[in-house]
């Protein structure tokens, strides 16, 4: 199963993850 997020954000939004990285619920995905 997967969860896909699609969202509008300011262009300054930055993902704080890398592809293939393991992540836990509640950990930072991105920041403005």
């Amino acid at each position: 199963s997967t969860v896909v997020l699609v969202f509008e954000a300011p262009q300054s939004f930055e993902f704080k993850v890398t592809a293939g990285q393991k992540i836990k619920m509640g950990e930072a995905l991105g920041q403005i």
Partner: protein
Amino acid sequence: LVDSWKNTETKWYPIPVALGLSVVGFIQYRRVIQREEERLEHPKKYVATGPWQVHVAAALPLRSLSRLWGSFNSLTIPEPLRPIGYKLYSWIFGCNLDEMKNPNLCDYPNLSAFFYRELKDGARPIANATLVSPSDGKVLHFGIVQGQDIEQIKGVTYKLDALLGNDDKSTSPVENAILGNSRQIVDEEEFANVNGIEYSLDDMMNEGHSVKTESAVGPDGLARSETNDPQDERALVKLADVTPDIANHKVKPGQAMFFCVVYLAPGDYHRFHSPTNWIVQTRRHFAGELFSVSPYFVNLLQNLFVLNERVALLGKWKHGFFSMIPVGATNVGSIKINFDEALKTNQKEDIPLGTYTEVTYKSASKILGGKALRYGDEMGGFYLG
């Protein structure tokens, strides 16, 4: 009886009988024609293109297998066998049993219950970030949506409208089916599921299904941000005033549309939570296949995320449009949304591929125009089969 049988005169009326047969024949003929037309408009099965693995997967009755898998895993396991069985499963798939809310393995009657286990309070602290992960898993891919294209893997894209659906009524039924846009609009106050059973959304929301909503929304009808806005802690976020173009997914100047895909492996905690403060306004349940969504298949099968059955939750956050789309897979074909009891996924009905049923949550809060969710609120999860 014998006398009646032998001596009763039989009167035949050729013209009415012929007329009746003609009518029955005509009705049957019309029904067959309609059925064939519908089949052409909405393909019920994915036509496989790609390497042999894709053809094999497409030939399998994945939805039936998924339901069988779910039924099998719902069988009660004898109590003495539970600890050893779940420990073996945990060892194979890397589950961390220390963070389970109920650590007594004997209390889980079957693998489905163990799979949908809860975590201890505080096991997943919510980070101080604009956006947090909705679930445990692996980040498969992320980036910016270029025009309408979302990158699945390098060089392979799928369409945003195909993933989320759109309100464009100008496309033909066949195009719509391919794009995943053939829809059954459901009324805001009363809506029907695919079986035609009607539910009252107000009834659902007012009878204990929206307890968490109330805690997320203040008496003034505004969502509260408690922990994730360091500059403005406990400030009220005026989500009611945000008016994104949800229907067409258009962004405002200076903004961009981003995407992120998180894959949940079999051993992962399989509930998903709200990744930010936002309001869900619409739910679109797309019928589809149940291919595996493992990284291996993501690399192999083009358009995987728009072929599989999924639930697109559309709404808004303080920066505009926001959506979250749980996508089903063969082993976890059922998607549950806690605040939407009418939603039934992975059903036996043969619904045409790419069509969807739309429901709005506007009556959950008249002011906010939908169901309000805070950072970390549990939204639902994936069930085995």
